[in-house]
């Protein structure tokens, strides 16, 4: 079977994120000292230089910030699904915090089911979780 590109679940900077998605939660790194949220995760708070972090649960809601539709040539696992969409989602809690994903038509739906011509920047979406090998990937459905 063709393989997807997946994160290293043992990367210490991001492991809590993937542990949360495995539990069906979207969590974001925040500074334990000053509270500033940051995405992607990193080892130090750029606002106060603290290395202590916590992981805050999010509502799992956001809006589409941008979208692309890749066509081949692509790695085989992705080429089989192309054309599919990739979206960037601005998170409800702070729209300057963003995360990538795919827009799916239903919680278990594939990434090539939504007609790309219907995807609009600014559309509200909510998170769903789909298992790919040993990783729980956040994806999005229309809210």
């Amino acid at each position, binding site marked *: 079977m063709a*393989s997807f590109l997946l994160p290293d679940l043992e990367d210490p900077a991001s492991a809590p994120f993937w542990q949360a998605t495995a539990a069906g939660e979207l969590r974001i790194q925040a500074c334990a000292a000053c509270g500033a949220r940051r995405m992607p995760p990193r080892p130090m708070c*750029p606002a106060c230089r603290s290395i202590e972090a916590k992981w805050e649960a999010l509502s799992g809601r956001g809006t589409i910030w*941008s979208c*692309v539709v*890749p066509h081949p040539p692509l790695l085989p696992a992705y080429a089989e699904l192309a054309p599919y969409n990739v979206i960037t989602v601005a998170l409800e809690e702070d729209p300057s915090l963003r995360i990538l994903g795919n827009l799916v038509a239903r919680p278990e739906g594939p990434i090539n089911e939504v007609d790309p011509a219907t995807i609009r920047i600014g559309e509200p979406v909510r998170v769903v979780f789909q298992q790919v090998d040993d990783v729980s990937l956040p994806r999005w459905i229309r809210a």
Partner: protein
Amino acid sequence: MSIGIQDRTAIVGIGQTRFAKGLEDSELSLACQAIAAAIEDAGIDASEVDGLSMYSMENNREFEIARSVGLGDITYFGEIGYGGGAGCGAIGHAAMAVATGQCTAAVAWRARKRAAKSSRPWANVGQRLEGAQQWSRPWGLLRPVDEIAMLTRRYMHEFGAKREHLANVAVAFRKHANRNPNATMYGRELTHEQYMQARWISEPLCLFDNCLETDGALAVVIVSAERARDLRQPPVYVHSFAQSIPRQHQVMTNYFCDDPLLGPSYACARLLWERSEIKPADVPVAQLYDAFSPLIPLSLEGYGFCARGEGAAFTENGALEWPSGRLPTNTSGGGMSEAYVHGFNLILEGVRQMRGTSPCQVEGAESCLVTSGEGVPTSAVLLRR
């Protein structure tokens, strides 16, 4: 009063190999050929070269180059990261090394074969993703074109840019390539209609929004302004040089800062013009890094040729086209129609414009802006004659 290294060094030699898909020579051989040609052009002895400045992505090592080409004792060597962002950085670091006396004659170069495995880091499979890549690739955002397409769609949304504007870029550069016999796309016309009908690569970007895939090598020789006056080529001065990694920037997938469309060009431009006696309105010709067509409107804005959000409209009415456009850009065809060698061919075209030997020579041009990659940690030089 001169600032920093302003006009203290000059490019006095240029050399290049042929450009093609699938050259037989090795990357090392291509590098040596381009460097030898640049040294020959400068009219200095190879043993005078004592500085080497290169891209971190270069596969060739300095000692291999030095002992093949027969260079002297190398007293300065260094490399600049971030692929297409590195070209002007390699020039600027060579200029700084010469200006500060760390070396006296420096060579900067880029040699690349697209077939080389290392030239496609996005295609490495089988390994788990660490760092920045894990926040985009799992969802199928795999290639540089996908990463830039994400910014492009947002740019179109925020500022009303259209595919027709990107077509203006592609068509202008192709016209220039059609006057340049060394260009890969020499003799192959591109019309707006062909652009609009081209196959998608990553919507909203189509085939003609992408740079070429090219094998080839290019090199320049840089010496002090004093030494340059004794050599056979007219000196092309490095008037201003800047680099930038803007705050909170993430390479290529720059979606996580407050304003992702405020790219590295802005921060680079600020210092570049601060250190320059020449201002954007006085610059008659530009070579702007064009791995993807949308980088052109972003760079036009970043480097101050128009206001924010007006880069797409700037391309209208043939503004980028030689001879009568407002700012003839990528006058040898650029990465999209001459050759894609990580932007180093833009530097040589900038030198030709200052020497008066471009295939699309802008009459009386006294300065030329050359930029490296937008969307990555970047660099730029302002050349003047």
